[in-house]
């Protein structure tokens, strides 16, 4: 299957997705959150066999998070490989109670990405086997990568409130 066929097939299989093809070869797919697993497993079977990254954007004015699944392909066929650009699968979820199903069953390497997004944005991934913080040591009331997290206030409250060590008494 080449790229043109793939785009046609995608449009046929998933009727309610929005699919844009860019000049630099990148295909951007906007879809609903219920479809994420189906689209990813479909793409995995059709050339795009590597999940490069899961990223998250906080659109605070629109009250939405946007999850971006970046897919690339590792193919033996060089001509086909040249032809394929990356695929960005973009999914918007509401900011109030962000939850989406995990894609570990499709791409196993999604696990640390999902944990990272969970601790930095507070997006819950239902079905994730161990959704615990990955890097952070402290508990944060607001997840630190959200736009409404006030870093300066946090620094003032936490780090500047720690007292300086007193000099020794003579």
């Amino acid at each position, binding site marked *: 299957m080449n790229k043109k066929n793939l785009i046609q097939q995608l449009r046929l299989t998933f009727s309610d997705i929005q699919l844009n093809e860019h000049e630099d070869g990148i295909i951007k797919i906007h879809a609903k959150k219920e479809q994420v697993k189906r689209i990813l497993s479909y793409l995995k079977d059709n050339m795009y066999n590597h999940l490069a990254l899961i990223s998250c954007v906080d659109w605070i004015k629109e009250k939405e998070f946007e999850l971006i699944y970046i897919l690339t392909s590792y193919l033996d066929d060089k001509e086909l490989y040249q032809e394929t650009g990356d695929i960005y699968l973009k999914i918007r979820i509401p900011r109030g109670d962000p939850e989406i199903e995990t894609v570990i069953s499709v791409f196993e390497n999604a696990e640390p990405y999902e944990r990272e997004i969970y601790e930095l944005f507070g997006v819950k991934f239902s079905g994730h086997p161990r959704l615990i913080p990955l890097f952070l*040591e402290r508990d944060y009331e607001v997840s630190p990568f959200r736009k409404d997290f006030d870093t300066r206030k946090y*620094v003032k409250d936490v*780090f*500047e409130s*720690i007292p300086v060590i007193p000099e020794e008494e003579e």
Partner: protein
Amino acid sequence: MDREQVIKALKDSGKWGHKYSLWAIYFGTGCGIIEIPPVITSRWDAERFGVIPVATPRQANLFLITGYVTLKTLRAIIRTYEQMREPKYTVGFGSCPINGGMYWDSYNTIKKLDKYIPIDGWIAGCMPRPEAIFIAVTHLWTMIDRGTADAYKKYRKQYKYYRKNQEMALGKLEWPPLYPINEDE
């Protein structure tokens, strides 16, 4: 070494030994560690000054903190520092351990390192040149000669304050206090 220095060295041979055998723990924190490989290898050759990197904190007596300190690294730094044998000297390297540097409003890096462990001296700059390390080492020699490089003594005396600050930053620490803490005082 001229004759005057021989007498001086014999008079206070402990200090003489400490001065010329500053063994630095190879502990990479932040971006400053990139300056350490040229310093210890043939280009700048830190062994001229008696500074060599060692693998474990038990062998080391110089601790270079080479860059920003996240909370996770702070935990490792405290544990490493407490395992080092006295006399031990710490040098903050770069502007981040001094006052936060470019991470002054970060949610996850501590701003002033001397609130958590004692520091003998600072090397300012972002990044400092390798020559700055040697200037710091020669300053440290002078301080050892005068007996003013005594941050580890301060750690022992003011330990309860340090421990309190460490617990404020990291929550409950999973290792016991290094020195006994008198609660009554």
